[in-house]
């Protein structure tokens, strides 16, 4: 429960110009970094870590957590405008966001992304404030069997994407999964690195996503004048009022919003799951339960709400496990954990015993960061939405160079940029042959989680796979998968019968 006196002390500690300054710079820096393809939230926080050495723990942590919150959102801007997700977590947002941009609804999509992100983040921080211990305690019950099933839950969406061709979607998904298994396995065996040192660690996710989504899209942009196909000039205008107006449209989908935030917070709390898994699982659930499920991937607003609210809510979940138990859920929280230790603090129960004010201070700073995120989001979206007015003759070289540098920047490796190019080419061929690239991207992102946890389960339970059905959480997840796949079909059949009767 909330310790009110400590909470008030935490709030009091935040009332200073220095805190406001770091909050502002953290959020703006985070959004900008998130929007740069190849520059992940983890890298943004890592870049700022040395800056915090001379700061007090509260000021330093405020700077880092606000950057984290900003970067997770920032990825959605380029995902929507250029189909080039700044972070892997925003890949899901690109599915509907870029389609909306092509239809001239970029202002609406950007607004929805801001609103969903701010609401998702804020509610997850409320959970962080009130339910930190229960969430963290439940999250660490997730063992390898549960994590495997969770990844499968995210992968089930593959079956429903694509232009009505089930087999092509699955084949594209299997291709993505196979790519994700390249490199050293959790047992130490080297699997198909084709003699390339750069593939020893597996296929890097960011160049693969940039290649499949952004670079492959350039081939179709080569034959158009603008991103927005057809339409009059009014559809291409940037409009701050539309952005602000549509930021409240996320409330039009209350069930999707609530469900996505719960999924995001919880998956974020599970160690090693992260924002990408959260957004894919949430998108999948929204697609299966929505009346407009068939429109997902074609510019459906609900898709953006599901994806953005979940990936931002995952930040609150990740901080739950980090602060309450001292277990980092992702690379970013590992850096945050390191930052706490650098300031001589011990994350976990001891932090709550001796530094309660600091913990509450960080959480309140996160709430404040959401207000600034809204302002930063609207500002960036407004200025960057002008991209749709730029001719593709200028945009194509710009995106191509950004994709190359973004892939290179991740590990300072030219090999990653070359890999991105190869994936771009494959993505182009896939699009030409009607194979959904989204399915392959999904396989690449969720594949490593599924693969490593299946191997861990096999080793730990000596190849006894009944464990998936004997562990309660795993069984519940399996039932959930089956129900989420079967129920929409039954409901559809009942509806058709009803329509026939009437």
């Amino acid at each position, binding site marked *: 429960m909330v310790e009110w006196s400590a909470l008030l002390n935490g709030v009091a500690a935040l009332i200073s110009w220095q805190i406001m300054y770091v909050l502002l710079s953290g959020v703006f820096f985070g959004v900008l970094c998130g929007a740069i393809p190849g520059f992940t939230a983890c890298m943004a926080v890592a870049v700022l870590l040395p800056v915090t050495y001379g700061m007090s723990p509260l000021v330093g942590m405020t700077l880092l957590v606000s950057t984290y919150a900003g970067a997770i959102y920032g990825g959605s801007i380029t995902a929507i405008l250029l189909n080039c997700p700044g972070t892997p977590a925003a890949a899901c947002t690109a599915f509907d966001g870029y389609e909306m941009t092509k239809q001239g609804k970029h202002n609406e999509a950007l607004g929805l992304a801001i609103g969903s992100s701010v609401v998702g983040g804020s509610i997850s921080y409320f959970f962080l404030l009130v339910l930190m211990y229960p969430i963290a305690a439940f999250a660490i019950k997730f063992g390898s069997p549960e994590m495997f099933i969770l990844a499968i839950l995210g992968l089930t969406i593959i079956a429903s994407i694509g232009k009505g061709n089930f087999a092509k979607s699955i084949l594209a998904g*299997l291709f993505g999964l*196979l790519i994700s298994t390249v490199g050293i396995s959790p047992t130490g065996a080297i699997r198909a690195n084709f003699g390339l040192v750069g593939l020893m660690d597996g296929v890097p996710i960011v160049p693969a996503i940039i290649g499949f989504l952004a670079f492959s899209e350039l*081939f179709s942009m080569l034959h158009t004048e603008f991103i927005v196909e057809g339409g009059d000039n009014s559809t291409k205008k940037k409009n701050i009022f539309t952005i602000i107006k549509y930021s409240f449209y996320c409330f039009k989908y209350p069930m999707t919003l609530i469900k996505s935030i719960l999924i995001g917070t919880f998956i974020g709390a599970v160690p090693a799951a992260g924002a990408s898994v959260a957004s894919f699982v949430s998108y999948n659930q929204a697609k299966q339960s929505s009346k407009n499920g068939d429109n997902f991937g074609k510019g459906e607003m609900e898709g953006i709400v599901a994806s953005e609210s979940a990936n931002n809510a995952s930040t609150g979940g990740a901080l739950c496990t980090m602060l309450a138990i001292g277990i980092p859920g992702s690379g970013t929280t590992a850096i945050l954990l390191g930052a706490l230790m650098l300031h001589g603090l011990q994350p976990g129960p001891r932090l709550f015993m001796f530094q309660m004010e600091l913990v509450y201070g960080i959480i309140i700073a996160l709430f404040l960061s959401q207000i600034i995120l809204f302002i930063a989001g609207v500002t960036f979206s407004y200025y960057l939405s002008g991209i749709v007015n730029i001719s593709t003759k200028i945009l194509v*070289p710009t995106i*191509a160079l950004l994709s190359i540098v973004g892939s290179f920047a991740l590990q300072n490796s*030219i090999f990653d940029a070359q890999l991105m190019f190869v994936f771009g080419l494959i993505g182009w061929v896939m699009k030409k042959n009607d194979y959904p690239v989204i399915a392959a991207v999904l396989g690449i992102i969720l*594949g490593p989680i599924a693969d490593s946890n299946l*191997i861990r389960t096999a080793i730990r339970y000596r190849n006894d796979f009944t464990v998936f059905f004997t562990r309660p959480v795993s069984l519940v997840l399996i039932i959930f998968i089956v129900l989420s796949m079967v129920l929409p079909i039954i409901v559809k059949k009942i509806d058709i019968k009803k329509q026939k009767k009437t």
Partner: protein
Amino acid sequence: MKIGRYYISLRIKGNLIFPLILIIFVAFFLRETTHIFFSNSMLMVRLILYLIPVFFFFAIKEDLIIRKDKPSASKKKEKKFTLLQKDRISILFVILTLANLLLLNVVGYIVTFFLFSLSLMLILGVRSIKILMLVPVSLILVLYLVFQRWLLIPLPMGFFGF
């Protein structure tokens, strides 16, 4: 193509390129992993490799037209895969990007990026000298400021050192 009594043709010519890429990838993957194929490291890979032929068959089936009678000239109006005709620009784009990536480490990002964006814009039909000069220079400047100065990520300089 005639196999036995059946005439087999493709709905869209070229639609087998991706399945072909997939099969080549699977073949190379198998060749590299035969020694550990039945180990625990290959648990999920095995499952994927068993599923690929099944869905490969169904996916290919969608793209094939199998007829008993000989397709008449009117029926033969299949959509053409226009890789070589329409997509000359796409192929030039591929060649340019490939050259850019191969020269990046040798010549450095400033020269390669300048030449890449300049030639790409020329291919796309930009003829204004002002745009042809201004866009590559500003792109390189932005990349330099953001990546090298601000985020301290060193970009390839090449042997010229710039």
